[in-house]
């Protein structure tokens, strides 16, 4: 494999990512000749079989796209359908959804920081091997992760594919006391998150600054989770319903996932780095200070530092969860009345990995006519390949094994969720040049 003129970096099965993908990079001399992030995860056709299902089933069905971020799917689904029907949710439901989402962020970010990504920085194959030398660190991670799961269990019944989220609200809402019971755990979690920022900031990062188009939600009063306008650092500022006017999906031969690009521009980046850079001013003071202490000020343009940004977002999620618990007053009804009507509704929410777009067209009986879902990883996929093309060029002199590991680490910086990315959309544009 390691001839003088050409060599290849090949990872047949990408590890510590959710789903099945492989990596192929061809280097010719000093030049990166080809990069393919191949997603061979089998397609599951969610958009096709959502047709003819009742709107009330959408949050349950779309959750099954991803066992790692089911709440993101449930939230984008319910918001899109509520928009189609003109349903107004109560402030208490809005609060509970934010809290629910905080639970998923805490769980998912902790999983990624400590169990999927940290082993790269410390030189271990996995968290189990890491635990042999860093037991206390791993125990802290597990406790933190469990607290995220606890929020999801309380609000959703279980952490994977929760059963309580519904169009209009929840099937059942918690009491004030049940939320108060989370407080002690969350106070510990907040302190642990601050330590996580400090710890991740001390890791060593390759020099790799890139010129990204960051895309994230932005809300006038808060760090974005469930709502906001869609903005970028290159002037994008749109209502989420206009998403499809500005972004297109391209099918590429080597992948079962579609590539997403900004119309007329190209690849873009979604997820923690994008949110942080576009919404730094909306972080609570405690998260901003933690970031500043770690010398993390926007714009952060090194994808490897996303582990620190995830930690800052952990601080936000714990602090926000505590605030929401303090403010909670149970709603009069667990969910708003829902009157279905013919219509189309779109929504974008911030999954842990970045923006997740749903669109549903519904008939007069509340049955789904068409569905479109664009998960964050398909949006990042092209950007990951662009990064690797740059980054692999820095590694041409490296031994192939180390270069391979470094490329894997770069991919894992995106926390790719390949299960999500495979299942895709209609209205695909096919272009040979991509």
């Amino acid at each position, binding site marked *: 494999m390691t001839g003088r003129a050409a060599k290849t970096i090949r990872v047949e*099965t*990408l*590890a*510590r*990512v*959710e*789903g*099945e993908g492989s990596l192929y990079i061809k280097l010719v001399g000093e030049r990166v000749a080809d990069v393919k992030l191949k997603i061979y*995860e*089998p*397609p*599951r*056709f*969610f*958009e*096709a*079989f959502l047709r003819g*299902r*009742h709107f009330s*089933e959408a949050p*349950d069905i779309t959750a*099954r796209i*991803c*066992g*790692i971020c*089911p709440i993101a799917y449930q939230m984008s689904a319910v918001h899109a359908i509520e928009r189609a029907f003109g349903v107004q949710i109560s402030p208490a439901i809005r609060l509970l959804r934010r809290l629910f989402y905080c639970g998923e962020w805490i769980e998912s970010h902790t*999983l990624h920081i400590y*169990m999927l990504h940290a*082993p790269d920085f410390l030189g271990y194959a*996995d*968290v*189990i*091997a890491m*635990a042999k030398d860093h037991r206390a660190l791993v*125990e802290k991670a*597990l*406790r933190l992760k*469990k607290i995220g799961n606890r929020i999801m269990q309380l609000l959703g*019944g279980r*952490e*994977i*594919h929760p*059963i*309580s989220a*519904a169009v209009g609200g*929840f*099937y*059942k809402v918690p009491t004030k006391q049940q939320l108060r019971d989370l407080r002690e755990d969350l106070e510990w979690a907040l302190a642990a998150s601050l330590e996580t920022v400090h710890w991740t900031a001390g890791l060593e990062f390759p020099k790799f600054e890139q010129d990204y188009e960051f895309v994230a939600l932005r809300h006038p009063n808060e760090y974005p989770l469930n709502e906001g306008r869609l903005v970028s650092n290159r002037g994008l500022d749109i209502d989420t319903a206009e998403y499809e006017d500005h972004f297109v999906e391209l*099918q590429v*031969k080597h992948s*079962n996932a579609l590539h997403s690009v900004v119309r007329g521009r190209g690849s873009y980046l979604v997820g923690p780095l994008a949110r942080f850079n576009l919404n730094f001013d909306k972080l609570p003071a405690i998260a901003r200070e933690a970031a500043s202490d770690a010398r993390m000020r926007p714009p952060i343009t090194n994808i490897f530092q996303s582990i620190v940004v995830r930690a800052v977002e952990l601080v936000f999620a714990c602090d926000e969860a505590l605030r929401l618990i303090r403010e909670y007053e149970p709603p009069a009804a*667990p969910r708003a009345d829902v009157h279905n009507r013919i219509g189309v509704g779109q929504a974008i929410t911030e999954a842990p990995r970045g923006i997740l777009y749903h669109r549903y067209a519904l008939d007069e009986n509340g049955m789904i006519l068409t569905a479109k879902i664009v998960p964050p990883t398909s949006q990042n996929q092209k950007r990951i390949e662009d990064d690797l093309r740059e980054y692999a060029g820095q590694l041409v002199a490296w031994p192939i094994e180390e270069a391979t590991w470094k490329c*894997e680490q770069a991919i894992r910086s995106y926390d790719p*969720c390949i*299960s999500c990315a495979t*299942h*895709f959309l*209609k209205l*695909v544009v*096919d272009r040979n040049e991509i």
Partner: protein
Amino acid sequence: MSSDSKPKPRIGVFKFASCDGCQLSLLDAEDELLGVAEAVEIAYFPEASRAMLNGPFDIGLVEGSITTHADAQRIQEVRRQSKTLITIGACATAGGIQALRNWKDVDEFIRIVYATPQFISTLKLSSPIAEHVPVDFELRGCPINKYQLLELIAAVLAGRKPSIPSYSVCVECKRIDNVCIAVARGVPCLGPVTQAGCGALCPSYDRGCYGCYGPMESPNTPSITSQFRILGQTDSQVARAFRGFNAWAWQFRKASEESERT
């Protein structure tokens, strides 16, 4: 339990078409994970480790359904390498939600989703693992219950029968003193025909069970169908109720097809 001198039992975790949620259950066992890792060698688990060791494995945990030619071949190799093969979750045990394609023309599905259909290689059916290779134990659920998974691993390693109930969700409701939402409030509920394991979650959250643990041992689906009809559900609603995450499990499949025919 095991000393360092004695080789630990080796576990492999394999993924087919699925959402990753069932294997995540292992990482979600926060209080037990490090203990499990001391008792066994997790030799192959790509979601968690880049060290992917070769078989053979004492236990192969298989998540996901078979939907491609390549996967139909790969499962044969996983079976050869696994002394005990356990399928985890509704995809592996019943074909999963993606088995909804089994009633449709999959080529049409591909055309709906992909612009260049010829790039996509897929089988006509999404099928459970047991249709391809012998399976030693099937753990139900969408997702599985992590405590049932831990119990199953412990039982296999100890050479005993796992304590995993095959009765219905109704028994779980009775145990936790839930008032029956079907009887008291007329909410359509698949609890009577669905295997226990979730802890009667949906009825506890004021909604009917939607069958994510699949059919219980001897489900009386004609009776629940007529009950749904009495509660005002249409035939197509009944068919849809059975056509969920365990749609291809034969009992649910039969029930949905019968409702569709009437």
